[in-house]
């Protein structure tokens, strides 16, 4: 975990979050607005006027990418928050539950995990038709908590069995209090890792679903929508594919990096 790597990762995250927050300032024009002459201005290569070119419908790709960042990042953050929250609640509850319930809860998590997530989301979305970004985020969150809940469960069990926790329990400290004072700190690295991984998984998933016409409805710009707007031939107009894919790849790489960073905190401490 080099310093340069971490700098790059944090830089990417800062840039993406900054773009998401400051979208109206960075690209004041309506991202769905057409060019002056939609027939003439379509599929223009990058130029001074359109730094990232225009799409099939003569819209400015730069503006759509900036505003798309806002939607895609929001979806990823909501879904990740949901994944972490459910996994945390499920994992810690199971860790502190009586043995029979603990087993049942973990088997349920296993069952949820073993149904391919994409298949579930795919069928749900094709059934319901397209969903608003927030609803899509919720569906993605509900479908993705199972693996993290198992990790958190194991960590929580370990934390519960730690001598300091057992002595606190012996002293009669309340369960909720123990959860927050003893278990939560032990889970923190796992939570950070889980959150970063969740973002790294949800972003390509949203892109794929939207690309296949079952994600976020038109005309809302998202990273997946931009790829979809590139048309059936991904090699036709390179600027329609390269820019959104580069942003997706950079973000996912940064999140994966931060996840592995969180996974090995001791190692990085040594490196310093």
């Amino acid at each position: 975990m080099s310093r340069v790597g971490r700098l790059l990762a944090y830089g990417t995250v800062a840039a993406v979050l900054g773009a998401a927050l400051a979208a109206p300032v960075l690209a004041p024009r309506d991202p769905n607005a057409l060019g002056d002459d939609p027939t003439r201005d379509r599929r223009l290569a990058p130029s001074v006027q359109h730094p990232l070119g225009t799409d099939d419908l003569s819209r400015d790709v730069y503006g759509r990418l900036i505003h798309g960042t806002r939607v895609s990042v929001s979806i990823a953050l909501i879904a990740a928050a949901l994944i972490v929250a459910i996994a945390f609640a499920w994992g810690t509850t199971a860790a502190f539950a009586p043995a029979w319930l603990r087993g049942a809860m973990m088997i349920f998590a296993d069952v949820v995990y073993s149904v391919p997530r994409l298949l579930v989301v795919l069928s749900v979305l094709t059934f319901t038709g397209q969903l608003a970004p927030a609803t899509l985020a919720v569906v993605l969150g509900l479908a993705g908590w199972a693996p993290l809940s198992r990790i958190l469960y194991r960590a929580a069990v370990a934390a519960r069995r730690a001598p300091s926790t057992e002595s606190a329990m012996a002293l009669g400290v309340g369960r909720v209090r123990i959860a927050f004072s003893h278990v939560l700190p032990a889970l923190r690295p796992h939570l950070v890792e889980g959150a970063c991984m969740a973002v790294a998984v949800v972003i390509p998933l949203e892109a794929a679903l939207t690309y296949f016409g079952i994600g976020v409805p038109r005309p809302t710009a998202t990273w997946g929508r931009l790829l979809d707007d590139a048309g059936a031939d991904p090699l036709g107009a390179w600027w329609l594919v390269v820019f959104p894919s580069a942003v997706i790849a950079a973000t996912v790489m940064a999140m994966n990096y931060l996840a592995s960073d969180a996974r090995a905190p001791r190692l990085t401490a040594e490196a310093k």
Partner: protein
Amino acid sequence: MTSDAGRVQLTIPGALLAVLRPLGRAMLVALLVTSVSFVGLRLLPGDPFAPSPDDPPELAHARAQSRVQFGLDRPISVQYPALLGALARGDLGHSFATAQPVSGIVRSAITNTAILVAPALLIGLALGVALGTWQGAHAGSVRDKILGGATFGYLAVPEFLVALILGGLVAIRWKLLPATGMVGAEVATAPWLVRLPSIVEHAVLPVSVLAMSTACVVARHQRAAVIAAVGEGFVRGAGARGVPAHRILWVHVLRRTAGTICAMAGVLLPALVGGAALVERVFSWPGAGSALVTAVAARDYPVVQALVLMTAVAVALSASLAEAGAQRLAQGEALV
């Protein structure tokens, strides 16, 4: 047989458990998925036999006829027990859309997906283990860093995009390999010996896409596992005993990590089947993912239900078996 009676009796409970646990889990998955998909499907807007404005006008009332034929006019309280009963008998019904038996559709769809997923998993695991082991042994070298960067970067690109670009270049632009389907149309009904090269040719691109991401994930884990194992005493001990370094790496360390690798196959499988659904779509591969999308669009209830059900059960079963295998390997390791 008789002379070995004692040993056999000892192993039966373990073996039974190893078979029963995955089976139990698969049945749980089955019940859950059936109920959820049944309710979900009926709550949706849309009707498989509603007349379509895209159809020629004269076709409208044929659909109404079909509605009665398939029993969709009966109440849900009658339909659900009927469905469970039929499932228990192994009867998956007939497709609304093509009137074909669902079992046949599902069988061929899942077989076709397995044709992609199984080689992708094996190749991915083999490639990933080889890469990861080599990287672990040369941790910190320039080549390790380059490989690490490559796997890291590859995993960040959405799989469907890789499939699209690879297909666009290799199949459509350069016409080196087929872009669609599973077998050349002309040889599709030929004897399997003739068909096989065509299937292999069609599978190269989708399998490569799936295998590459699997390999990247496995390589990263394997690298870490090898670094950890190399630090352990037995490797140093073996080194001290004069066992050659490559032998230590490829025999001792690999055996050490075998359990993890096997468990990993189970963990990777659901994601791989999910990824296959998207890759199938890009390459028009007639697998479970493609069949699901087609059936959902047509509101073909029995097919959707059976596909989700059988895929989930197949994945759960394979994953449990991989897990059981991993436990076996771990036990073996502990015994050694």
